[in-house]
Structure formats: C-alpha cells, structure tokens
C-alpha cells in the first residue's frame, strides 16, 4: 500500500465539500438579507421625501419618469419627477396617468397588484422579456413605458387613435390584433379595460426600477454612441 495522503482520502474531500457548500450558502443567505432590504418596494412617503429607492413605491405612477445618464454611476438611471442636473431624481414633476396624478397609496398599490397578476395570468413573459428575462419573440418590456414608439412622436398614439401614452398602451393591450406593427403580431389575450389599466401601471412602475443601466442607451437612437 502506498503512503497515505490526505489528498486521496475520501473523508477529507467529503468534509471539504460540506464546508465549501456551507460557506457559499451562508454567504448567499447573508447577501440575500442585504439585497432584500435594498429591493424592498418603497412607499409614497419615500417619494414625497425625495428618497431614492431601487424599487420605488407604486405611487411613482403619479410622476414623470425618464431614463438618463448619471455621471456618478456611469450609466443610465431612472429619473423620477425631474433631474437635478447631476443625474438624481427631484421627485417634483408630476405626470397625469389616465387623467390623474393624485393616486393614493392604496389605489396605486391595487393597480400595480392587478397589473402584476395580469402579467402572469396572460403569460407575458412567454413572449416578452421583463427585466431582460423571459422569451425572445417580442420586445423587452423593462423600459417599455419610456419607449419612443409610444411617445408623442411615436407611431402608436396615432395608430390607436389616442392622445396619451397610457391610453394608447391600454388600447393596444386590449386589441393587439387590430394594431399590428409587424407580421409578428401580439395575440388577443382577452385583456379587459380594467386589466389593461393595471398592466400599464405595472409597466410604468417597472420602468422606474433601477436596473444598473440595462438596457444600455435605451431610446437614444439618434444620440446613441453607435447611432446610425
């Protein structure tokens, strides 16, 4: 029998595996606590007090949201209610959402809840990506709310015959088969007017989440670094 070596001892490796796994798991759990605190949804008070949250409260739908370069972060960040000029949110400028900019915390939360449920009940994620995850058959919805296609210069308001972004989106969601933009069309999923409103609230809220600069250069086709 050759000299015994720890390197060829099963028990040694069994213990090592246990320790490594335990250590990695504990680190992950610890990070999970930290991350959970950082991605917990904010509330109306945060918005009123000007506290920036990675995932803002549902009443963010009362505010104007943009996606702008932050020199400090080195990438785009969601800007809520106006930019202080340095890439921070001012939480001042409001924006009407279906004619109102005074949704209470409760109302906004209910809308977001309906929208999130709707996104699952209609399997949105099985054609689109949300925060970049899902299917690749249709455009990413992470910042769909900010997509120029739905803005005043985009095609969708004229196509759906609506004057605001949210109404155009809601109309499209209810009858996607009537407003095809390409041969590949979104199917009619039986979305009601109420559900559509919730879904648009969900999309607007999602666009306010701090995604560390994903997607890059969103919506800056003309000004983009690699713009054509």
């Amino acid at each position, binding site marked *: *029998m*050759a000299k*015994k*070596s720890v*390197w*060829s001892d099963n028990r040694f490796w069994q213990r090592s595996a246990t320790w490594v796994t335990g250590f990695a798991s504990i680190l992950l759990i610890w990070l999970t606590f930290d991350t959970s605190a950082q991605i917990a949804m904010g509330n109306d008070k945060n918005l009123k007090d000007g506290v920036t949250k990675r995932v803002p409260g549902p009443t963010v739908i009362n505010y104007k949201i943009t996606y702008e370069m932050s020199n*400090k*972060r*080195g*990438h785009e960040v969601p800007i809520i209610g106006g930019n202080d000029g340095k890439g921070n949110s001012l939480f001042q400028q409001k924006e009407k959402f279906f004619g109102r900019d005074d949704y209470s915390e409760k109302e906004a939360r209910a809308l977001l809840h309906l929208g999130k449920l709707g996104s699952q009940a209609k399997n949105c994620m099985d054609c689109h990506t949300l925060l970049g995850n899902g299917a690749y058959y249709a455009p990413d919805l992470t910042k769909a709310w900010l997509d120029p296609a739905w803005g005043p210069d985009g095609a969708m308001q004229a196509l759906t015959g609506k004057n605001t972004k949210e109404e155009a989106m809601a109309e499209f969601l209810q009858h996607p088969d009537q407003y095809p933009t390409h041969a590949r069309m979104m199917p009619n999923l039986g979305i009601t007017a109420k559900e559509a409103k919730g879904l648009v609230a969900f999309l607007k809220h999602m666009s306010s989440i701090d995604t560390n*600069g994903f997607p890059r250069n969103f919506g800056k086709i003309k000004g983009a*670094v*690699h713009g054509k």
Partner: protein
Amino acid sequence: MIDPSVIRPEIALGDFLPIFVSSALVLVFGGFYVGIYTAVKVKMLKPWFIALAYMFWLLTAYCLYLMGSLMHVGEFTAKALVVAAIGLILLPHAVYYMQDQVHKKNEH
C-alpha cells in the same frame, strides 16, 4: 467596486465579434490544454505533446487578456480572470495527482 473614473466605456461596435470569438476560444483552448495534458498522463499520447498542452494554455491566457481588454473589464474582474487562468493551469495537475494517489492506494 469599479473605479468611477474608468466607468464602463462603451464597447466599440467592431469589438463585439473579437470579444465573442476570444471568449469562446478561452475555454476551447483551455479544453485542449486539459485534454492533452490528461491524455499524455494516461499514456494515450507521447510525452512531448505536453509542450503542446502548455502552448494551448498560453493561448487561453492570451484570449482572456484580449477579451478582458476589449470589454474594458474593471480591476476586480481583471483579477477574477487571472484567478480563473491560474485555476485552469493547476486544475489537471491537481486532478491527476489526486487520482493517481487513489489509484496507487487501491492497486497495491
């Protein structure tokens, strides 16, 4: 943390292809290195092939360097890549050494 002064320069459009090719080659060459090394050790190949194995490792390291610099990785990631390259060169040695120990222990 990434140094704020070198924050994420844009990847040049023409650099995407070399990045993808080099990052694929990292492991392809890495695989050759490990494969040839093992094959030599279990006597499926002549001993001089070992030089070829190390050459492949050098190619791996070069691809890692190329890929890292083209995508402008931060300092931290650069270190992680160096660790990965060192891990790769040690890996088959360690595996072979340990397996051999066990084999010896069990066959005599």
